[in-house]
């Protein structure tokens, strides 16, 4: 029997008992559908995160903070008070309100700077400006996106922030354009805006800044990005009038290392810092832990889909065993007419693979359709504020892998019935009632 004839016969045979084949196809469909959707969510979310932050400009930056108090983590009770430790954090240093965290002091910064491999260290300061104004057209609240200096922004126009520059630079989110009176992102570039900020004594002050770029909204906090000189200037204004001698403390600091450092070297720097009592993370680490959570969720969903597929596999075994039994005489006849066992085996396993293909191709196709529709609806409703987020995205390669894997499962499920068919003795099969 020719290969083509085996395939056409197998397909014709699987349609002979439409109800039985149909039910098995539905079982596979459910598994393949779930698997395609979950992998689509995985692709969508991962590609969104990547588009947001994977262009990590500051690959040479570590976020350093003090390791949590050992006593507090090892026992359930609170740690004993130690007046030597800086636990209170003064205004404008990036602490969360109401939280007590181990603060970094200037002495800590010196220690971190002295660590081998660290080129420089800046305390993370958070400034809270009151408003932004352009050309006297009205004052608007201004939120600052603190990690902006660490990441490469998804730009609508203009350039990235330059921390080495002497000018005070600002990266404006697209949402501010209308309010400030800019018709296009391009028209905002190079314009000077003024930022209102209140000093320690309560006096309102204004600081000018130049818009260097316009940024699409991101998941990493919506808000304007400020370069280091502008942040420092605003911080100085905020602290103007602070009683002299009040010790400075910071929630965290950004330490710079050599951009060409290998992974091993980065690990060594982090270990060195850990020995001295500092926790440190690269931007990649921070994103990595985010991705790990998403991957775990997707992994769990995939596990359910695989369980569904295994159940479907037994459905295939059952379907084919029944059709082997139903066609016992036909198998006997074909063998009596000189069909060899291998071809009989091929005939039945092709039927299994075809059923698997039918279920998985339909499942994947419907999943792509449904997923795209849902994703588009979500993009204009729930995720309206996250432009560019398509929650469900389909990579042709992963769909091909899913269909391939399901066909493999179907083939494996088909081996048992196909072997039973191939081993039949023609005479016994013909005598079968």
């Amino acid at each position, binding site marked *: *029997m*020719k290969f083509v*004839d085996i395939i056409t*016969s197998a397909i014709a045979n699987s349609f*002979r008992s439409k109800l039985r084949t149909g039910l098995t196809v539905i079982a596979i469909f459910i598994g393949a559908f779930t698997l395609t959707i979950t992998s689509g969510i995985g692709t969508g979310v991962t590609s969104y995160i990547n588009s947001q932050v994977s262009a990590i400009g500051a690959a040479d930056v570590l976020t350093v903070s003090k390791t949590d108090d050992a006593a507090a983590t090892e026992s359930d009770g609170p740690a004993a008070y130690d007046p030597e430790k800086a636990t209170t954090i003064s205004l404008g240093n990036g602490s969360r309100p109401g939280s007590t965290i181990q603060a970094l002091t200037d002495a800590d910064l010196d220690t971190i700077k002295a660590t081998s491999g660290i080129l420089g260290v800046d305390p993370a300061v958070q400034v809270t400006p009151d408003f932004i104004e352009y050309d006297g057209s009205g004052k608007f609240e201004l939120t600052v996106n603190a990690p902006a200096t660490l990441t490469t922004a998804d730009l609508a126009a203009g350039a990235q922030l330059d921390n080495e520059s002497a000018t005070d630079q600002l990266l404006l989110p697209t949402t501010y354009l209308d309010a400030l009176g800019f018709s296009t992102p391009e028209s905002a570039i190079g314009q000077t805006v003024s930022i209102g900020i209140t000093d320690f004594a309560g006096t309102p002050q204004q600081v000018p800044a130049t818009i260097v770029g316009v940024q699409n909204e991101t998941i990493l906090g919506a808000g304007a990005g400020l370069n280091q000189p502008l942040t420092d200037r605003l911080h100085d204004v905020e602290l103007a009038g602070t009683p002299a001698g009040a010790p400075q403390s910071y929630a965290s600091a950004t330490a710079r290392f050599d951009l060409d450092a290998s992974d091993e070297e980065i690990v060594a720097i982090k270990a060195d810092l850990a020995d001295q009592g500092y926790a440190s993370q690269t931007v990649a680490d921070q994103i990595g832990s985010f991705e790990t959570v998403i991957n775990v969720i997707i992994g769990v969903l995939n596990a359910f889909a695989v369980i569904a597929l295994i159940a479907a596999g037994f459905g295939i075994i059952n379907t084919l065993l029944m059709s082997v039994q139903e066609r016992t*005489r*036909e198998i*006997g*006849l*074909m063998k*009596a*007419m*000189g*069909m*060899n066992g291998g*071809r009989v085996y091929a005939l039945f396993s092709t039927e299994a693979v075809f059923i698997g293909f039918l279920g998985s191709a339909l499942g994947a196709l419907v999943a792509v359709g449904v997923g795209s529709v849902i994703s588009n609806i979500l993009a204009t409703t729930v995720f309206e504020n996250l432009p560019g987020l398509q929650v469900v995205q389909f990579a042709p390669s992963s769909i091909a892998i899913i269909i391939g894997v399901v066909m493999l499962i179907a083939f494996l499920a088909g081996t048992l019935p196909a072997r039973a068919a191939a081993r039949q*003795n*023609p*005479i016994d099969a*013909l005598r079968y009632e």
Partner: protein
Amino acid sequence: MTVPVLSAQNIGKSYGSGANRFDALKGVSVDIRAGESVAIVGKSGSGKSTLMHLLALLDDPDSGALLVEGTDAKKLKGKEVNRLRNQDFGFVFQQFFLTANASVLENVVLPLKIAGVSPKARRARGMKALEQLELADKAKNKAMNLSGGQKQRAVIARALVNNPKVIFADEPTGNLDTATGAVVEDILFSLNKDKGITLIIVTHDIDLAARCDRQIFIRDGIEDVTRSPEAISKPEGARA
């Protein structure tokens, strides 16, 4: 003398084992020569079908030897056995064994499909075989919609579609009325005469047996030599 196409030498076959062991054939020897027509006659359960299956290489004898053109069948490779079954032998089974939902033509070309003949050639040869049996107009009908006699003819068309050297027919007229049975008999004997196809027919019907060149009587698994061929006289032109 030429080598017989098929030669059974004291073959035996048992079914089951232990107390349930049943000797269906207890040592039968037959030589089948090319171009002759042989009837295997005997009571129900005497072992006729068993003998036919052994001769057709559909089953292996437990004792004795079966020679195919002088070669021991046991020494033949699986591939060679399949080739013989497919190319040299044609089968007409008592219960038709037609695939009910497939068309008559599809049923008839099954041996060609197994042989790997191209679809176009399959169709042409299948139609030729159906024309020979005056069934061409039914080619596209479903096999289950044929009458008993038409089914029997379809099965014969299937047996001869691959131009076999030997046709094995188990009770080819067993479930047909006398008139239709006679038509089927005529077809088989004309194949034997016109194309020189060797016929091996298993039958209860003493008249059909009488039309064959030779009869082998089986009784309880052995050849019944008391029934000499001379005991049956050929009825003159009874069913011409």
